[in-house]
């Protein structure tokens, strides 16, 4: 296990080193990333210019949801955002090369790239978080701080697992790659808002199928000290890590299924 971790670190270091070779270009990319994603928040600001609250959530609270989900998504995007290129790998037949190596194909795919410049998206999220916290004036406890860190990390894992799960579609249809976006970028979009604004079926979907509700909404209820109009049990607010583990198991199973299919149906 330790050996795998150190190999991962080594592979990531090699990628990052080659990206940092061009300092100015990297810095510009970082800023650009932050800029593009900030647009989403501008949209949120524009919304709140027109209404005082969104289903009982103030701008500070929605900004908090936005920031935490954005940071979680950015971390995942940094580490495995390159999975979008998996379709090309499969189409060109280069995926076969991974099967010749004595390592898990999923591990190899995950370590193929690491885009440090996407950190810009995380920094933008951090800036919005600071903005949210200044608006909110919360009473911080060690528990809440721990929850804040946990929700971002667990959120990143959930996003990652969902990403891996949906990208497996390329092993059945290379052209179907874009459907994955609906779940990954779409999921990130939905996590920016309190799930109470969605229809019941969508809420349930976000809780039990693509568990975006556990990326931002549930943990936020705890940190912000809000009542849950849906009346869900209180302990669910702490369920993010468990949900993260479940999604990882699901993603692993899906990948194995995809590998069985690929190896019998051919490239």
């Amino acid at each position, binding site marked *: 296990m330790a050996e795998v971790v150190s190999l991962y670190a080594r592979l990531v270091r090699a990628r990052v080193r080659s990206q940092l070779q061009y300092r100015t270009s990297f810095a510009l990319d970082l800023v650009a990333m932050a*800029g*593009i994603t900030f*647009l989403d928040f501008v949209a949120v600001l524009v919304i709140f210019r027109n209404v005082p609250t969104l289903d009982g959530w103030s701008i500070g609270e929605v900004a908090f949801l936005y920031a935490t989900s954005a940071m979680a998504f950015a971390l995942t995007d940094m580490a495995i955002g390159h999975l979008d290129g998996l379709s090309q790998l499969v189409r060109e037949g280069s995926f076969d090369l991974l099967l010749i190596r004595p390592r898990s194909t999923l591990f190899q795919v995950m370590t193929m790239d690491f885009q440090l410049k996407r950190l810009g998206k995380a920094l933008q999220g951090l800036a919005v978080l600071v903005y949210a916290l200044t608006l909110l004036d919360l009473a911080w406890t060690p528990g809440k701080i721990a929850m804040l860190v946990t929700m971002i990390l667990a959120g990143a894992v959930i996003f990652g697992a969902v990403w891996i799960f949906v990208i497996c579609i390329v092993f059945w249809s290379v052209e179907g790659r874009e459907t994955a976006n609906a*779940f990954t970028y779409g999921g990130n*979009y*939905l996590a920016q808002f309190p799930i109470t604004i969605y229809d019941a079926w969508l809420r349930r979907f976000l809780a039990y199928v693509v568990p975006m509700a556990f990326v931002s909404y549930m943990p936020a209820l705890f940190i912000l000290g809000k009542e849950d109009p849906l009346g869900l049990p209180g302990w669910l607010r702490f369920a993010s890590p468990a949900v993260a583990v479940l999604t990882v198991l699901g993603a692993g199973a899906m990948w194995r299924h995809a590998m069985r299919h690929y190896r019998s149906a051919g490239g």
Partner: protein
Amino acid sequence: MRVYWEIARCGYQRYAAYPAATWAGVFTNMVFGFMRGSVLLALYAHRDEIGGYNASAALTYTWLVQALIAAIYIWGWRELGDRIRSGDIAIDLARPVHPQAAGLASDLGRALYHLLFRGVPPLLVGAVVFELTMPQTPLAGAAFVVSVVLAVAVSYGFRFLYSMAAFWLVDIRGVMVASAVVATLFSGFVIPVAYFPEWLAAVAYATPFPAMAQTPIDIFIGVLSGTEAAGALAMQAAWLAALLLGGRVLFAAGARRLVVQGG
């Protein structure tokens, strides 16, 4: 004229060759349509009307954005920039048709395919499931179609223009990203320009971006009608002319530079 028709047909076929990709795109568009629609509806719990849009208009706006997004192709277009960087543009210079005119014909062909296969399905689904605001008169419908064609052309004019940077810069990614950021926000793709604070809306209308999406959408919904609509169409045409002209000028300068310096 025949040449342009053929080029447009090729543009159409290039995308028609991948139906699975189109269906994947339609699925994603519809998912986003539902999502953004849900968020907008939550706004209307408090107010009947925001920025001149009622709830139905806001939903229509959301679905139109999803229907038009593929056809209008606001970001990610790097074909021309890549051709200039690699020097392949030299081949185009030798052709009897100007690259801008050829590119516009090809893009219109592509846009037709996307309008038919990634535009109509989401719009139909949206209209069936929700109560959308449809064009009130056949004339409005016709004006909408004209506006969409102009919007695609304006988008192409803009894309052509920013691709010109490739003649001078090593890596046009920065220019592309910056244009994508600005274009996406000001075209109304993220949130209607009508929702913007006045100062920001004024800035938006000083750019060609609203002409790429907001204008046709407003004509469809009926926010712009009668003489206002005619004026909006004229404005789109004016932006188109300006962008195409600017593009031609920069292209001539860039081509000169290329020829002088060698590939």
